[in-house]
């Protein structure tokens, strides 16, 4: 399951919960407009979200719900108990769909009809909008009165070209075909639908036609986007397959079973009537005489002589088709022949009605015929099967599953009879079965089987000679339908969608927690980390002060355990606070697109490593600096397409933003292939602004010069635009990044492009500091500033002008006394060997030696920023509580140097 779907499911449950809640509250305050608005918003959002996935069932009911809410909101409908009931039903239904999706990852079509039904119920409650409903919706809502249905279907059948119908008729296997009447919504083009394609892709498609809904308007007034075409489709797919195919638009289709013979509706030019009366009388004579070959010959001759576009030819073609497929269907043949005199298509419904069940049964007749009488091998097999069923029924051991057993045996017997085509016997068996079920006894069945097995052979033969078909066949056809209807009827009384209000929703898999609570937990874990640090002190005291070595060791063992647990706790809380950088990245595609369009530049953005994670605070703080950088790059970095072309570069510039993790730091790299930064121009500008002096201009290397863009008050753009170029930007970026304990690194090659690397800690919660001592006080220095610690002998320190310097591995390094910087009057202490303790710290690209009294260990501390009056002291970045209860002040190296 993809993360988007997971999020959707978790959100949907929240929405359903609050929708249920709002509905409850509305019961007591049905006119509360705010509640109604809120409810509408929830339903609307949920619907919109569901549209992201292929859940038409869900979207459909929610859409209906939304429409109802609109009606209530605008006062067209009143909020009532019934509305609430329906909406709660819908929410339960949606909840059930969510369960299904969660369990299987997809949404089956099994709920399609239920969804359509729920939607229809909601629509029923929704009053129509003020403007009259369009003709199309009226059409789709009302399938037409029953008596009109026949004509309607004939019209639909006529819309399907004869050739397609002939093919369908020939290829139709046993059973009815389905006629799909697909009436797309009039506005469906605006929803991106292509009903023609949908119709053409119908499963089992045998043929189809297109009908215009209304006479064509004058071309000048035609609205090309108002859908007026209906589709008539003939298919041999099953109902379920069609429901699946049209699952998005179940309300726009109607399915009608048609027997293949009903397709035989000749079409064409009716000119040339009575001339063929001879043929009609001959044909009827052949038919009565049973000389089908002569009939076929005569038909073929006449067909060859006739213009293929005539109505007559069409009828003859049908005649041939029926002769080829169902030559025994005399009634049908006669009807087609007789239609030649009237030039009216045979009314199959009427013929069917008059001849009893001839037309639908015609298929069964053909079926029976085609299978013929059972051959002896099959007959004995059937007899064996029936005998076995009798044995099973006769068991009579009163087992609890007796009813099921009866059903199973009855099903087998029924199938045997159907396979043998013994419909009369089937009818009597059904009666026996009904009696058996009613009286809860197997005797009627046993009696029937005894009777049947005795007379079986004769029964089959009798059936063979008299193909008269009883009306029982269709009745039996409908029997299973009735039972299924009953079962759905029963289902209505049962708990809907498998849930009730009292059902618990099951354990939720994710929680939403206020960030304050997470922060509190993090602080507590932080304190735990600090207090665990007290244990080594305690162990030390036990050993040194009280002299209990044993206890000291035990404390250390316990410390190791607690240490491991707190580490894991810390890791766990960090995981909770982690967010992917995509949170920041997601705004860039739009930003780059809009900005580059505004500037007339052509830039392609590539994002890499969006799933890299870092602490929430870091990610959130990263947003603005990155936007600054990207804007700068778009504005100053990329050239206009013409310039790029002239320089031999691809016209489309490429901006790549990469995020990656390197041990405990997140690296973000922004690289463009623009014109790069011109060090000479930068130096010039910096000099003009008085940021550097003349000597520095000469001294600075190119790479050093481009770092000047981070200097406050420097802008390289020739003119100030609304995007960038006001000289605030890169210095702000650097400040923000450094406040996050991050660093920023810039490389640029003139004409080739610029690369900016940001390096940020994964988390800001715990800071690693080294403890140093100055004049008896302890201070912390963040480890990420520290390069190394060295001891330098007194004589290794020189004084140039009034500054102290030393040479460390061949490099000159400035030395500064921490005491002096902090305004402590005491001189730095030397150790026994007369050496100065120097801690080398990084300051931008430079290294500076800090002279201190002595170094201590490094510790993990939770750095608390200074508050109140103390927050004005920039020299300190914060304070931390030590394991022994003392307070450690952590220095802000950048500020004091």
């Amino acid at each position, binding site marked *: 399951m993809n993360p988007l779907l997971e999020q959707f499911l978790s959100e949907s449950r929240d929405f359903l919960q609050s929708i249920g809640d709002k509905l409850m509250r509305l019961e007591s305050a049905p006119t509360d407009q705010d509640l109604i608005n809120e409810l509408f918003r929830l339903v609307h959002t949920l619907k919109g979200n569901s549209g992201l996935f292929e859940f038409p069932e869900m979207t459909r009911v929610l859409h209906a719900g939304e429409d109802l809410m609109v009606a209530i909101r605008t006062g067209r409908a009143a909020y009532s108990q019934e509305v609430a009931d329906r909406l709660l039903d819908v929410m339960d239904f949606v909840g059930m769909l969510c369960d299904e999706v969660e369990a299987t990852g997809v949404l089956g079509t099994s709920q399609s009809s239920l969804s359509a039904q729920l939607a229809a119920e909601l629509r029923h409650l929704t009053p129509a909008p003020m403007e009259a409903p369009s003709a199309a919706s009226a059409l789709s809502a009302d399938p037409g009165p029953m008596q009109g249905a026949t004509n309607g279907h004939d019209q639909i059948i006529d819309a399907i070209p004869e050739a397609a119908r002939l093919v369908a008729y020939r290829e139709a296997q046993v059973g009815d075909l389905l006629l799909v009447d697909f009436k797309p919504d009039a506005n469906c*083009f605006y929803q991106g639908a292509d009903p*023609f394609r949908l119709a053409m892709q119908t499963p089992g498609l045998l*043929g189809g036609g297109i009908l215009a809904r209304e006479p064509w*308007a004058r071309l000048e007034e*035609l609205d090309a986007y108002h859908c007026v075409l209906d589709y008539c489709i003939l298919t041999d797919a099953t109902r379920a397959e069609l429901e699946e195919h049209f699952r998005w638009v179940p309300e726009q289709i109607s399915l009608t079973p048609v027997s293949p013979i009903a397709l035989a509706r000749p079409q064409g030019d009716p000119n040339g009537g009575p001339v063929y009366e001879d043929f009609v009388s001959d044909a009827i004579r052949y038919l009565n005489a049973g000389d089908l070959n002569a009939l076929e010959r005569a038909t073929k001759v006449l067909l060859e002589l006739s213009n293929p576009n005539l109505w007559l030819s069409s009828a003859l073609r049908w005649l041939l088709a029926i002769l080829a497929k169902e030559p025994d269907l005399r009634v049908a043949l006669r009807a087609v022949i007789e239609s030649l005199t009237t030039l009216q298509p045979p009314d199959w419904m009427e013929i069917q009605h008059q001849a009893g069940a001839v037309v639908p049964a015609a298929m069964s007749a053909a079926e029976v015929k085609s299978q013929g009488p059972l051959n002896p091998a099959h007959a004995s097999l059937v007899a064996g099967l029936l005998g076995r069923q009798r044995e099973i029924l006769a068991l009579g051991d009163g087992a609890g599953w007796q009813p099921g057993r009866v059903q199973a045996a009855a099903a087998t017997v029924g199938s045997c009879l159907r396979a043998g085509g013994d419909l009369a016997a089937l009818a009597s068996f059904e009666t026996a079965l009904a009696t058996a079920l009613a009286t809860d006894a197997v005797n009627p069945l046993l009696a029937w089987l005894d009777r049947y097995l005795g007379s079986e052979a004769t029964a089959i033969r009798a059936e063979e000679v008299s193909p008269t078909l009883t009306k029982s066949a269709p009745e039996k056809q409908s029997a299973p339908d009735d039972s299924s209807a009953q079962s759905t009827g029963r289902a209505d009384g049962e708990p809907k969608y498998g849930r009730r209000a009292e059902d618990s929703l099951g354990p939720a898999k994710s929680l939403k927690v206020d960030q304050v609570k997470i922060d509190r937990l993090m602080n507590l874990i932080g304190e735990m980390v600090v207090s665990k640090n007290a244990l080594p002190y305690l162990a030390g005291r036990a050993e040194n002060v009280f002299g209990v070595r044993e206890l000291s060791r035990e404390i250390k063992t316990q410390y190791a355990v607690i240490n491991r647990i707190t580490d894991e706790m810390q890791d766990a809380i960090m995981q909770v606070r982690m967010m992917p950088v995509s949170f920041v990245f997601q705004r860039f595609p739009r930003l780059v697109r809009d900005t580059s369009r505004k500037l007339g530049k052509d830039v392609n953005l590539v994002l890499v490593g969006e799933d890299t994670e870092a602490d929430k605070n870091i990610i959130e703080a990263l947003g603005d600096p990155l936007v600054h950088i990207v804007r700068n790059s778009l504005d100053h970095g990329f050239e206009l397409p013409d310039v790029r072309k002239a320089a031999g570069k691809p016209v489309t510039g490429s901006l790549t933003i990469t995020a990656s993790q390197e041990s405990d730091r997140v690296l973000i790299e922004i690289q463009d292939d623009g014109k790069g930064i011109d060090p000479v121009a930068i130096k010039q500008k910096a000099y003009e602004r008085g940021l550097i002096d003349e000597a520095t201009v000469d001294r600075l290397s190119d790479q050093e010069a481009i770092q000047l863009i981070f200097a406050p008050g420097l802008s390289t753009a020739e003119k100030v635009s609304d995007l960038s170029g006001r000289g605030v930007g890169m210095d702000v970026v650097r400040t923000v990044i450094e406040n996050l304990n991050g660093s920023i690194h810039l490389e640029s090659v003139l004409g080739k492009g610029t690369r900016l690397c940001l390096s940020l800690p994964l988390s800001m919660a715990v800071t690693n500091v080294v403890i140093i001592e100055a004049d008896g006080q302890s201070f912390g220095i963040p480890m990420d500033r520290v390069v190394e610690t060295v001891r330098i002998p007194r004589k290794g320190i020189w004084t140039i002008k009034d500054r102290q310097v030393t040479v460390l591995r061949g490099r000159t390094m400035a030395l500064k006394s921490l005491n002096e910087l902090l305004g402590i009057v005491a001189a730095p202490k030397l150790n026994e060997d007369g050496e100065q303790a120097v801690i080398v710290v990084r300051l931008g690209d430079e290294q500076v030696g800090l002279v201190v009294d002595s170094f201590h260990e490094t510790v993990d501390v939770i750095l608390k920023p200074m508050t109140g009056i103390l927050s004005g002291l920039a020299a300190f970045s914060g304070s931390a509580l030590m394991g022994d209860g003392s307070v450690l002040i952590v220095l802000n190296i950048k500020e004091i140097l």
Partner: protein
Amino acid sequence: MAIEFSKTTAVFQELVSVDEAEALLEWLQKKPSAKIDLSACTHLHPANLQVLMAAKAKVVAWPSSEMLRNWLEPILKP
């Protein structure tokens, strides 16, 4: 452009989308006697189809796809 309009003939190319219907309608309004060549057409959105039907446009070449042709011929044939 999925429809190429020449002086008297509109040639439908491959897949003709819903967006083309507006242009087709305008063109047919100006040239009521225009001819339509569908031979290279593999599918056309019904918006185009209903424009052709309403304009009673004269189709001079049918799609090579038999299935599409079977659908279109009965309704577009004069």
